[in-house]
Structure formats: structure tokens, C-alpha cells
């Protein structure tokens, strides 16, 4: 099953680290939201478990975790809002424009 993660609003030259079940799967510096799209970066990863714990952290800043059930909500959006990270999972890919 494929987990699709998009970093959306609020990132400002951040270093972002993401983990799946505690294992680092994404790290990138200079993550910055393009305000014309509300999109900063993203990644996809194949996972075997039907449910995983996704962790996302901004270096020196907020962090958040959320359990994701891949059969139901494989599309995940992460936004940084007022100093917090918000993780939203959905059944369908949230479009961008």
C-alpha cells in the first residue's frame, strides 16, 4: 500500500523530518510553502502494514504524530499553523490549484 504525504501550508525555510513507525523516511532542509499552490513538498512510500504511525517534525519546532489507516485514508496533508503541525488524512487526494 502506498502512503502519500504532502507538506502544505505554513512552511518557511524549514527542515522537515518524517518517520513511519519510528523509522525516518524523509528529511529535507529549506522546505518552503509556495503560496500560489499551498504546497511545499511531498513524498510517497510503500508500506506493508495496514496501519502506520506517521511522525512529522520541524527541526527546532513543532512535531506531531498520527495513526494512518492506509486502506481508508492513504492521502495525508501536513500543515504548519500558528506554531503547530496539523496532520490530516483523507480517502482521496486533495487537489491543488
Amino acid at each position, binding site marked *: 500500500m502506498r502512503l502519500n504525504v504532502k507538506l502544505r*501550508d505554513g512552511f*518557511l525555510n*524549514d527542515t522537515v523530518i518524517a518517520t513511519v513507525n519510528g523509522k525516518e523516511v524523509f528529511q529535507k532542509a529549506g522546505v518552503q510553502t*509556495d*503560496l*500560489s*499552490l*499551498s*504546497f511545499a513538498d511531498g513524498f510517497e512510500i510503500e508500506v506493508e502494514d495496514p496501519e502506520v504511525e506517521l511522525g512529522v517534525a*520541524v527541526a*527546532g*519546532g*513543532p512535531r506531531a504524530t498520527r495513526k494512518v489507516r492506509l486502506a481508508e485514508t492513504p492521502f495525508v496533508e501536513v500543515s504548519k*499553523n*500558528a*506554531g*503547530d503541525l496539523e496532520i490530516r488524512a483523507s480517502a482521496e*487526494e*486533495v*487537489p*491543488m*490549484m
Partner: protein
Amino acid sequence: MSSADPTAADDRDNLSLEEMDGAMVLADGVGQVPSGDPSQGDEADGAAISLPSLVRPVSGRYRNTTGGLQLELRVDVDRARPMKRVSGDFYFTSGSTTSYFGSFAVNSPSITVTVTDVTIKGLGSFTWAAGAPVVQVTIPRRTIFQPQAPATLRFFQTNGSPGAVYVCTFESIYFRTVRIETDRVSDVSTPILASYNTGSLPSGGSARNLSVVSAYAEAGIQMIPTAGSDVINVGEAGGNSIWSNAELHASMQQHFTLWKDLPQWAVWQLVAQNHEFGSGLYGIMFDQQGKQRQGCAVFHAGIGGTTADKLRLQLYTYVHELGHCFNLLHSWQKSLANPPALNRPAALSWMNYPWYYPFGNSSGNAAAYWASFPFQFDNEEIVHLRHAFYNNIVMGGNNFIVGSALGRDVLADSIRDDSGLTFTISTHQRSFALGEPVVVELALSTYDPRGRRVHKWLHPNCGLVKIVVEKPSGEVVGYEPVIDHLVGENETILYPGEQITDSAYIGFGKEGLTFDQPGNYRLRAVYAALGGSQVLSEMLDLRVRYPVTAAAEELADLFMGDEQGTLLYLLGSDHESLRRGNDAFDLVLDKHGKSDLAQYARLVKGVNAGRAFKTVDRDASAGVTVRPAQPEESASLLSAVASSGVLDRVSNEMVLTQLAAVQSLGGNPEAAATTLGKLSAKKTRGPK
């Protein structure tokens, strides 16, 4: 008028008194229309000016060309969705070149309608320091059997003295005219959108056939398609037939027949099939390099088709991406504009995302959005489209997000605030000498008896508080700190009677000096609360005085430099790049040591002397040169500051804390204890 200030009068262009008398048919109080809130809707708008049906509306675009000066005037008081304001742009033409001079807008005019005239009058906001900032536009009322009447624009000084006069001929019912070129990529397998009948599916507006052109026409913007439309070979997207933003930009430069690296009212829209971000990307305003916002693209992999829902989505995406080219941000991101505005996540606007709509029905949030959406921009966006200052909207003008929200929002009150929080901004004095550092005190409290969870990052450095400044010229800028601080969690539960405070020097930021001219300033602070509320402070008025003595003028010169601003922001530095600033402060202490402003020079030097200062030095054995702390010198300087009574309360507490630290460091614990005792006493006695 003068070329230095087009609002100023000169003999050549003044109308004679007889001419002015003839033009000024204005009965005081007759038909006076208060400048209402356009958000009240069409009924309120319709009631504002009830012209007889055979009388022509007066709104639209007017133009005056006198010699080398050209004025475009926009009058917006009737026709569809009137925003009750006027605005204009001045241009200079020399030979075959035309250059932009400046813009103005009157955001809250009084509107007077008599049997013979419509008169709009109010204090304007200008992009330059206008000598005659009061704007009056008078337009004779004409029947539909007569041609549209000209508009007479008069500028006045604030004391009522007349300034320049311009008689402007009617040009168009549209406020702006933009040429649009739409190209298609060869692999697009579904038709390019022609129009969508908004009655095909449930919606919040009247049923009508809308195209890109007519959608913008409803907003008062004329889109004229060019004849240059082209089919672009998909090979330009590379071997994979998938577009990157770089390929889109290169293609725009090659195929957009009107493309120039200049600000101009022209825009390119590409209809393509696939973008490298996948089919979830419906469209993009990709042009964010060089002169920005000249091009956008839409992708039919996600939106193509001929069913009603696909046609609706195409119309929405096409109009939305072009909105970004006009420098409009997403509805929920307006606070990220520069200067910031209020977020409007529930806006029923082309610039929202239906799937982000905060209210849902049984079919979901997007369905609820579509069922309510009237296929239009919201009022603030309409104001921007019709009245934004030229560089904030013209394609190729200011970069994306700069000046993107200069509508009614800026410095405007919240319509609703249920945050439970009160945020205040204040200064310890209302009048400052030119060059005097402006320090604001910020305070957060709550009136919710249950308490409110809040973050404690009040300093603008932390990015969770924005300060907006309206300068004497009318220019509105958002204060941007020199250094952005990355902050972590720092939350508490705030109860009534408690207060979180901080103070911030805002005299110098990324854009340089904030208070760089004498005159009246208006400030407002916005606290980004947990949960997304934007808590606005009350407006703070302060005045920067003209220097009236030679000493005051010299002090202003000595304080008004980027190096001095940086030193005040950093509270001192040894760095060589700031040497001229330190030299200026030395001169202040030498020549003007008894002045109030000298205390700020002592503050900077005293704080800096109290700390060891490390300089990276490749020649040094450790790679770093360390200048040790100089506690005695620091204590001497800070003692003088602390006893002067010049600084604001929070800054003075900081000085006492620093003073106690350097006294302790210098081996004088008794003095440190005495200083801390003063600090404690001040905290006990001081205002909350």
C-alpha cells in the same frame, strides 16, 4: 499640477474661478450617501444611489492626458457591486516611453448625489507624499440619450486650498483592461473550456453562462483575448510529456506573443495535460521569477471533460489561476500577504478551495461550497482588482504576495471576533523625534472566565505577531524583523486579570527604517492565536516630529542609518560592517550626551559591552577572536540609561536586569542586589 506631485496646483492647469463655479453644482447635504459597507450586499448597494432609470450610471474608467502626464481614474459608486471608492494611476510620457508615477485611492469617501451631479470626496491614500491629499470627483448626471459625461478630479490640501484639477473623459465601464492569450498543448485530449452554465448544478448564484472573460467582466475587469493563440508541441515539456515549472516558464517566453520583461496588462494562460506534480494539480501560477505573475497553466489531466461538474471545475480553475496573476492569494492565506490581511477561509470566492470550505452538508464540505458559491470574487478581492495600486496588481509588477491584499482589509476592524482574547499595542509616548527608536509594548489578555490556552510568542521576531504600519504617505507596510526566530512550544492558560507582555523595537526591519519620515503613523498588531484566530489590536496613532533645531536635525541624521538601525535591533555589535553605526553613536555621546536620544546610544553600547563578543577570525589560532565582557563600562552606561526615565517600562526592566547581571559579573553583588530591588519595586508599582 507639477511633475513632482501631480496633486499640486500650478497656474497652467487650474480652471478659472468661473469654470470652477460652473462645474461645482453641489448642494450640501442633498442626497448625501454615507460610504457604506459593500459587504451588505446588492440590496444595500442598490439603495445607496437610487438614480432614476433613465440616468446613466457614472462608474467606470476615465482618462486625462495633459502634456506628458496621463491620469487613469476609476470611479466605483454604482453599476454592479459598487465598492464605494475612487482610485487612479498617474503616468509620465516622454517621447515614446511611458513610465508609471504613482497611485492613489480613496477608500471611505462621502458620496453626494444631486439632481445634476454625483460627487465623491475623501482623503486619499497615495504612493507618494501628496501635497494635496483630499480627492474630489464630480461627474454630471446624464440621461441614457446623452453621451457619458466627463469626470472632474480636484485635489485639495487638508486646509481646503485647491490643488490640481483634471477633467477626465469617460473611457470604459471596466476598471481595468487586460489582454489574455490562451495557448493549448498538443496532447490535451479534452476541449478547452468555452463556458459553463452556472445553473447546470446547484449553486449559490443566478444561472448564467460564464466564461473566463465574462467571469472577470462581472468583477469589472475586461479581458480581451489576443489573436496570438497557439498550439504548443508537447515535446517542449521534454520527452516525458510532463511539464515542470521551468519548462512552463520557457514556453511562456517563447509562445506568449505579448511577453516582455516589463509590467504590462497582459497575461498568458496555457491549457496543458500533465504537470510533474501529478493529476492532483489542477492549475498553477508558475511565473515566480523575474517580472512575476505573467503566466499560469491549467492541467486537463485533473479537470478535463465535458460533464457539468468538469466544466464547472475548469471554469473555477481557469479563473482561479488568473486570479493569482492579479496577485490574489488563496482565501485562507490572506494573512500571509505583505502587508497582511485577515484570512477568510469561509469566503465564497474563486480564490478559495471548495474542499477546504469549513462548513459541510451531508454530501461533504466541497458539495456545500458549490451549493453556496455564486461564481464571483469576494468583496475584498473586488476592491483589489478594481483599486489596488498599480504595481500591486499589474502583471510583472510587485512579486507575488507583495501588496496582494491592499483592499479594505488593511488596518480594518474585524467583523467578528470570538477569540476571547484582547491584544493591545502601545508606546510610552505618542510623539517621537525623527530618528528616535520606536519601541512598542504588546500585551495579551483574556476576558473569558474559563481561561484561554495561548502561546506566549508576542515578539514579531517569532512570526506569530504581525505589525502593520500606515505611513504618512498612506503607504501601508508590514513590519518584517531583520531576523526570523524559529520558536517551539511556549503555551499557557491565560485567565482574566493576567497579562502576557513583551516589547519590540520596530524602527528597523528587513525593509530598512520603518519611521523614515516625519508625520502621523497608524499601527495595528495582529496576534495569530492557537486555533487560527487573528486577534487585532486597537489602532495606535503616533507622530514623528519634524526636527526644528539644528541639534535635532543632526541627531536625526546620526540615528537614521541602516547600521544604526541594525545596532538598535541587535542591541549592539562589534562587527566591522557596523562600524559606521557605532561611530555615529560615539558622536551622539560626544556631542549630544545630555539629549534623550543619547540614552539609546548608551543602551546599545552598554548591553554590547556587558557581553563577550566573538568574531570569526581565520588568522586567530582558535579561529575565533573573543573580546571579553567589559562589566564596568557596561554598568556605567546602563546605570545612566536606567535612571534617565527615557525608555519605556518593559525596556527599562530589561536594562535593570542587564545592569544587575553585569554588576554581578563585575564583582559587585551588593549593587546587583540593589538593582534587582529596584526592578522588583518597579514591577510591583508599575502599570499592568
